């Protein structure tokens, strides 16, 4: 397949995100790029992927198009289960979500996410510098999906040594069994996809570890834009750029009106 010469930072995130998803697994899909990536996975290697949305749709084929919301009417057509938020989250607590696919505004080296506020917590909680939308279902997915896949645009301030607010729990302080001891279920952050590469979390320390670099990036260029010390896999490889067909699918089939994938 021909490699695309004309893809955007969002598009490579989407392609990388899609590739992490396994066929025939249940993925609890957060709003935004995770929806695009899940659709791309379904249209390529994972036709039997089972999407779950927090407003209550289970397993739709998404043939009527890309939802603009995780409660969108498009998530319900052809769904096998049509209830509400409680049912979706209860299924997840029970263990029915293999993957959770979420974004955030700020991430730390243990895969904890902030989507609540920029400012001083707790003292400045009632007067944030920047008020973000809030957890939504992200913290629930982070707590209870079996594995989570995180999407965060790469930026030194966003890859932060200390979160200003911990919305969605990842590996917490990275200590052994930290999630278990805190009372959570699921093994936590599994992959992180940024605009610069793909990361996992090292087994012992639970620290973010670079696995693959996106075209044009090196270990050094990525570390330079990261606010904490990264680990590197023994064999950091180059992630293949999106193919023309993948880009075409995103632009023409999945998100032709630019709902989530901006052209610039």
């Amino acid at each position, binding site marked *: 397949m021909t490699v695309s010469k004309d893809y955007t930072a969002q598009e490579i995130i989407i392609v990388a995100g899609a590739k992490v998803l396994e066929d025939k697994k249940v993925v609890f899909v957060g*709003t*935004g790029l995770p929806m695009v990536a899940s659709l791309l996975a379904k249209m390529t290697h994972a036709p039997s992927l089972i999407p779950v949305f927090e*407003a*209550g*749709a289970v397993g739709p084929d998404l043939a*009527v*198009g890309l939802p*603009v*919301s*995780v*409660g*969108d*009417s*498009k998530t*319900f*057509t052809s769904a096998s289960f*049509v*209830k*509400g*938020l*409680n049912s979706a*989250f209860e299924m997840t*607590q029970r263990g029915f979500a293999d993957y959770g696919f979420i974004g955030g505004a700020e991430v730390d080296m243990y895969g*904890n996410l902030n989507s*609540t506020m920029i400012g001083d*917590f*707790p003292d400045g*909680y*009632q*007067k*944030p*510098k*920047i*008020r973000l*939308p*809030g*957890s*939504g*279902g*992200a*913290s*629930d997915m982070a*707590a*209870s999906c079996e594995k989570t896949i995180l999407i965060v645009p790469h930026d030194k301030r966003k890859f932060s040594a200390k979160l200003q*607010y*911990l*919305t*969605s*729990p990842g590996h*917490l302080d990275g200590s052994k069994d*930290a*999630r*278990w*001891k*805190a*009372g*959570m*279920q699921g093994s936590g952050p599994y992959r992180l996809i940024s605009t610069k590469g793909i990361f996992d979390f090292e087994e012992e320390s639970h620290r973010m570890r670079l696995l693959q670099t996106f075209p044009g990036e090196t270990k050094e260029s990525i570390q330079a834009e990261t606010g904490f010390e990264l680990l590197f896999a023994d064999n950091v490889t180059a992630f293949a750029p999106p193919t023309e067909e993948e880009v075409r699918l995103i632009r023409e089939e999945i998100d032709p009106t630019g*709902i*989530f994938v901006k052209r610039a």
Partner: protein
Amino acid sequence: MKDTPEMFWTGLSPDEARKALVNKDKSMRDKTMSLKEAVDTFIHDGDNVGIGGFVDIRQPVATTHEMVRHGFKDLTLSFQSGGMAIDYLGAAMMLNPDHFSIKRLELAYWAHEAFGLAPMFRYLAERSLIELEDWSNANMSARFKAGAMGLPFIPTRGPIAGDVAKSNRTKIIDCPFTNRPIALLPACHPDVAIIHVNAADKYGNCIVRGSDCTCAEISMASAHTIVTCEQLLSHETITSLPKDIAIPFLGVDAVIEVPYGAYPGACRRSYYYSKEHIADLHRRTSLMCKTENKDELQAYFDEYIFGVDDFSGFLEKIGVAELLKAKKLEAANCERLV
């Protein structure tokens, strides 16, 4: 257990919520009235208002317009993820807090997903004009569910670690059965719920299509519930679809037929989002956020809300073409014969 300040309840405490039901008239009677009458009767200054829908799905927009016209002080708004319904209330406060004010938000999310942020939220929060209590979507949904179940609290596996549980009244205990930590969420019993549904009968039996959101739980948890519906159906038709009844008449106090009652948000089977209208309100609000100049936002409210008598006046201003467009978009989602 986490060291928390003294417990407090917003809306009704579990014991107050139970008492409120003891003497309530639960009979199956005609509950239809005008939206104005419903808002006048069931919403009061200082109330905790539970708001149905999810982001811009089936939010009770028409009711929020009526609330803005009426004016209220010091409301607490409780919801999981809010969109346009919350926007209208927030913008009304930005324009004139002496006419309409929110004291407190208990929420998981206020924004619009693909349609961007809610500039009202940034304006009110960053200026510290409202009390905030952050929860997760599962938290808020479960809090309403605990209320609907008549329980003072419900356990959750949600964000037990991290700062969400530190921002609110969650209590973390050691589970007496497993000895592992578990989070307990206090029930939420709003004074009044505002809910939009696809169909209802005059007694308040409600049918919902697409996401149930958390509407049934909010209705059953609240002391009173105002339901607007796309379509008022006969009791016989509603009960011929018994498995589709999501909210029983017992949980409803007022029923008002308001077609397009969630517009410019979406309502499954009836209409899809009007993203241009949402964007227009946000543009006007953002302008005020940046410049403190409220003229454009005030003009919106003067035209669409204060300048009309009721929601049908708002729809007149939207016009047939826009309404048909929203309807056509949704028809494509559902692929069904009207």
